């Protein structure tokens, strides 16, 4: 998936932060968490997103409890600039396996 990313709109921020407390800072984190929820054990989630979620300290909980907690990274490519045509974003593509 190539989910939307960025901070949440004011109207949805609080309700969503309650449902996804581990992924509340960014929509992409929520898409990953929800995607993993939908998978059977052994199912795979592939995503291309901004790479910042793997580096910013505000994503620590998401990394520890979602990416490494309910899933296991199988492969990851830290792509950087110029991958997504027009989007000014440094990208990373990865595949997670549901535990």
């Amino acid at each position, binding site marked *: *998936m190539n989910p939307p990313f960025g901070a949440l709109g004011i109207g949805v921020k609080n309700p969503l932060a309650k449902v996804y407390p581990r992924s509340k800072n960014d929509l992409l984190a929520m898409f990953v968490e929800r995607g993993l929820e939908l998978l059977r054990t052994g199912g795979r989630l592939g995503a291309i997103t901004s790479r910042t979620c793997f580096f910013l300290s505000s994503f620590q909980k998401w990394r520890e409890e979602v990416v490494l907690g309910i899933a296991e990274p199988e492969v990851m490519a830290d792509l950087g600039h110029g991958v997504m045509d027009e989007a000014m974003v440094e990208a990373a593509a990865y595949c997670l396996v549901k535990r």
Partner: protein
Amino acid sequence: MLKGKDDVFLNPEFFVDGKPVTEPLTKDAPNENQPKSTHLLAYRRLRDPRTIKLLDPACGSMHFGLYAFDLFEIIYAEAWDLNFPFSGSRGAGGNGLKPLRETYASKDAYLRDIPRLIIEHNLHGIDIDPRAVQIAGLSLWLRAQRSWQQQKLRPQDRPSIHRSNIVCAEPMPGEKAFLDEFIAAPMKHFGNRPKNVSMPRSKPMPNRPSKAEATCAVYLSMMQPKALPSLTCAVSVMTWR
């Protein structure tokens, strides 16, 4: 920003006299995060290809789905020759389906049906843009026609595709007044909506992912099957739990 022991920063503030402040990356640098041994992920059991599901939750015009279509075609073609035995509800003939060789009289009949099977059983997509959802449905339908063209199948002999699993999810924050208004409004993009808005079809669809189904609260409409032959398209509202 977190940084590992071996990271080299390229921003100017990390350089002193033209040299990076951090230690350069070396091959034998100890890294406590490095796994001690190779970790192998076990292959998953083979299963009836009709029970494999792919969901793109932000599918746009279904670009990823088109790529997956190619892979599913290969998986399906292999499945006939493998003819693997029953292995529980998820194996051959799982989910209430008869095994492939009981469903089809011949391999040719089966190969002919694969494009339809992929669209009806395997590919699932959600997007917030109704136009993108229309295009996604169309692009899958065209992709199926391409396969049939390659099989030199005359249009009148091609299986008809009765549904696709692409839905439009209006990102509602859960305000009931807006939701009611949305349901009441005619969906001009998609023709008339069915009378029963709580269920998408007169009979339940057993093959949709159950949790995704739970999030899709209201199905609104589908394309007139005659308007675009062999293609249907559903629209739904997603509600946050």
